[in-house]
């Protein structure tokens, strides 16, 4: 039994009702947990001396639009001492995506959560500083959502130069 299997067993034993599913794909184990218990599970993973997931490698969201639940967040904690990587996953509804922040557990989740907030519009409760991080502060919309258009610049030729130029967002007086 390797460390990841032990971890999964420990999570299941400690939080029997929080675990929704455990899947394995390409030698990576994913534990899907209920959104309301993500902080408790994270804290358990970090603080339990046998598990000791002391470092959060990555945290990012996915938009499964138009499916429901629409959003998913993947947390990748890493136990440096035993070299084990796990994935925690939570699914969030599209109407009101919100989840508790784990930045109190792993400090570096701070910026990752701000990115997920900025790009996907997921609300993180109890986050110390939930502002936009990559987009300007007055930006409208969340660019990484699938229903957010990619956008492009129309190609200007000599015959339609003025027509397109008049629509361009130049700085105005």
């Amino acid at each position: 039994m390797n460390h990841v299997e032990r971890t999964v067993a420990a999570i299941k034993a400690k939080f029997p009702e929080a675990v929704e599913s455990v899947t394995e794909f390409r030698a990576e184990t994913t534990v899907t947990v209920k959104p309301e218990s993500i902080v408790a599970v994270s804290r358990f993973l970090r603080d339990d001396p046998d598990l000791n997931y002391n470092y959060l490698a990555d945290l990012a969201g996915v938009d499964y639009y138009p499916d429901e639940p629409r959003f998913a967040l993947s947390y990748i904690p890493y136990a440096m001492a035993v070299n084990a990587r796990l994935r925690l996953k939570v699914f969030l509804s599209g109407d009101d995506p919100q989840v508790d922040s784990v930045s109190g557990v792993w400090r570096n989740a701070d910026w990752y959560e701000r990115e997920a907030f900025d790009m996907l519009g997921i609300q993180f409760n109890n986050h110390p500083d939930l502002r936009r991080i990559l987009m300007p502060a007055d930006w409208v919309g969340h660019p990484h959502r699938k229903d957010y258009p990619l956008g492009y610049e129309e190609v200007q030729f000599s015959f339609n130069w003025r027509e397109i130029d008049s629509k361009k967002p130049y700085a105005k007086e």
Partner: protein
Amino acid sequence: MTDLREVETTLDQLRHLFTERAFSGETMVLNMGPQHPSTHGVLRLILELDGETVVRAIPDIGFLHTGVEKNMEAKTYLKALAMTDRLDYLNNIGNNLTYCLAIEKLMEVNVPERAQVLRVLMAELQRIASHLVWLGTHCIDLAALSILLYCFRDRERIMDIFEMVSGQRMMTTYIRPGGVWRDVPAGFEEAVKDFLEYLPAKLDDYERLLTNNPIFKMRAQGVGHISAEDALHWGMTGSSLRGSGVNYDVRRAMPYCGYETYDFDVPLETGGDVYSRYLCRMREFRESLKICRQALDRLPKTKGPVMTADRKVAPPPRSELSTSMESLIHHFKLYTEGFTPPVGEVYAATESPRGELGVRLVSDGTPKPQRVHYRCPSWANLQALTTMSEGCLVADLVAIIGSIDIVLGDVDR
């Protein structure tokens, strides 16, 4: 003229970041960047200063945000590869490599031995090139201006090797899913050999110039200290973490491309300051050279293809196109429609010159990725700046930014 009310609302949103003293006028809030030569790109720092001492330094990023991840979702896997070069513009090979490793993991593609050796060789050359830029710019921050010119002179030789191999100096897109683009041309091995013989003497020069230089030591020692525990908590990786005494290197922890078969050390320092990070990186040069030499030795012994035979991801050889109709169709389909990985999610990580570079790839079974997320080492390392810079001088802040070796293309993506 800027609207004063606008300024006030902006300040109000940032109120929780500063101490109360900032609002009584006891300390001063000052803007540094985004166009500041010592921020290594377009990084804006909001500083709260007590005289010349930094009380808080709050990074404000996003000025170089290009939406590469969003754009990749709209392209096939192969087309999206060309965008990965542009993320961390000092680690183009590494960006390609991590993305390709994720695809290969997702599709269970085996990469031929020779391609693995070439990947390692290229990745290590890239690491040296990146470290040379770091050394040059870091020394400028510490007022040693001439080093940059030496470093760029040496880096140019690596750029020449890249150009020889891929036709491009920087945006190589040399590493492809399933292998590498092409085998190396004639004269490649001599060029690399020349470089490997050339660099050690130059490194000795730089170390003579810097390592025991009292001015350099005064600027670097004891500055920007971060403990191992804090560094881990902030998710720092790479030499910035190893400078604090945590032995974590993805090449060792989770080897890829056969790194486990190479003999190299992971430099470790325990000081946790700018000087320790400097020492770590300087020793990493030598380790990278060591790996390069081993890879170069293996190159003549591993004759064979440099691209996988799995026709799901690799195009058919050129020679087949004129004789086989199926190959022609296959070639056309591969480059127009692209390949379709199974539904799933993978995470692949490599050791970039800055730390753990991870790619999280989510596939929905179509030829375009559902989501690509780059876990960039600069992003994580920059987060720790606030902790590292508490109580230092403004001039030291510049040294700290240089020592964590951020690339803003990597931070903002």
